[in-house]
């Protein structure tokens, strides 16, 4: 994706947010992206924000940011999906993925401090966040040691199996 395309996308996202759009679909040659933020009230965030959409877009649509050669989607394993978003800028980073389907929470309770923030140094086994599934709060541990350089999802956001949550620069 070139700078002009990126800017168009950012404009679109801002516009979508402004208009309180709850769902968004993007279809291109051989590529289809679906988002849905409508429906149930999120306990801690009032609505989707632009960063959230951008993160989901990045996670769900590797082809938009990958090199042209990868434009036609091949059967993609989760690893490929996770690695693909901006392969250039994530090079050398370890991606922590959600092991379950559920809702992402940064903290143990609304208002409490987040388990992990960008810039934190974490150990393997350290709790990074919670993914709630069926009212159960599942603590998600880091599977690498290093520095958190990116959080790829927002508080209260629904996440798929295998969806990238954090990018860690390994020690």
């Amino acid at each position, binding site marked *: 994706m070139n700078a002009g395309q990126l800017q168009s996308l950012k404009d679109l996202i801002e516009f979508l947010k402004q208009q309180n759009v709850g769902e968004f679909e993007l279809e291109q040659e051989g590529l289809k992206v679906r988002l849905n933020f*409508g429906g*149930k009230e999120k306990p801690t965030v009032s609505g989707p924000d632009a960063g959230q959409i951008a993160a989901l877009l990045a996670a769900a649509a590797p082809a938009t940011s990958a090199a042209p050669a990868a434009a036609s989607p091949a059967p993609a394993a989760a690893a490929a999906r996770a690695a693909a978003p901006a392969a250039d800028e994530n090079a050398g980073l370890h991606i922590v993925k959600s092991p*379950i*389907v*559920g809702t992402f929470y940064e903290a143990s309770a609304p208002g409490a401090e987040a388990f992990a923030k960008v810039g934190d140094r974490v150990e393997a086994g350290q709790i990074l966040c919670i993914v709630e*599934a*069926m009212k159960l709060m599942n603590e998600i541990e880091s599977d690498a040691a290093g520095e958190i350089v990116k959080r790829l999802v927002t508080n209260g956001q629904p*996440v798929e*199996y295998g*969806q990238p949550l954090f990018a860690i620069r390994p020690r």
Partner: protein
Amino acid sequence: MFRKVLIANRGEIALRIISACKELGIRTVAVYSEADRNSLHVRFADEAICIGPPRSADSYLNVPAVISAAEIADVDAIHPGYGLLSENANFAEVCRASNIKFIGPPPEVTRLMGEKEKARMAMKKAKVPILPGSEGVIQSEEEALDWAKRIGYPVILKASAGGGGRGMRIVRTAEELPNLFRAARTEAQNAFGNGDLYMEKFIERPRHIEFQVLADEHGNVISLGERECSIQRRHQKMIEEAPSLQVSPKLREEIGQTLKRSLENIGYQNAGTVEFLMDEDGKLYFIEMNTRIQVEHPVTELITGIDLVKAQFRIAAGEKLSDILPAKIELRGHAIECRINAEHPEKFTPSAGKITVFNVPGGNGVRVDTAQYAEGVVPPYYDSMIAKLVVHGVDRAEAIARMQRALGMFVVEGIHTIIPLQQRIFADEDFRAGFFDTKFMERFFEREKQKNAQ
């Protein structure tokens, strides 16, 4: 009607359910494993959520994953399809607890029908003919001899805890009973840690005949006639048809009335299939009930004109059968379904891989239910059935001719399918004459072997 439904299945039945939803104006949510990312059920659903890795146990059979997906997608209902979670009463209970409508009967009914002996007793009470057999566990050889005398030889001994043929013995005379009883008990003890046996009448050449029923949530049940499913290989159905040549209008009406009474008593709801064995004299004996939509439901749809999957949704939404169905159900013509499995047509080894050519037959009287496409991949993790080829004709002869021409036009390359085997079955004189039972395929292979040996 529901606003949004999650389809907890994959393959052709997921696409079948998505199609029904689209026609009813219901939004759809597909769930998928990593192996199914490029499947058509993912492409054609309004939303799609990855719920786990390829293994079914970790994805499609993973109840928390499915329920979580339903919650984050905010659906009103879940359709389980067939197989997978469709007859899992616990899953239905979790759905209820999560305030999500499970498209199927209540968990209590699923549980009752899942326990074969209880189901048998419930049906017996409701005067549905059941296979004569012992009541409960047989304690001794003497008791076994006594039961066998009452039931009449041949009989079959089965392990209460068992399945898959272990702890099973066919007994044809009183003389051989004691030895066979002891052998079965030992085998069952070794296989299941439980040596309990029961006894049933043994039918040498049974036909497998099943009745499709629909039940609303207002106490009304109706039977939509039977399907003949005797063409099986290792207890896997290969060809199904409706109506059965062996079921007279009178018998159909009688069984229909009996099922209506009994299932109304039990409090059955939604779609279901009651399976019978038919003996050589044309008598039907209840064996079990499947509390879900069946693979072979299209043959009933074609001869009745009723969309069974849409009916499931309308029933679950609280509609009455009288509003869903025409005043009078008429059976029109004859329908046959062939299961197209990705298997080697002689060795039956599963044949996963990339499909290079996929030409689906069409035209008059031909229906294909499939989620496969050219350049698509058959993953090695799941059931080998990749398509159902279903035809409808004015009579069985036209349906057979139509199936033959459609099989000849079904071109699949890149993987093996059993299409060549299906073609040989449709050329078989016994099959064409309707002269078959569940042992047909054994004899068919035997005949082929002898022919090839010549």
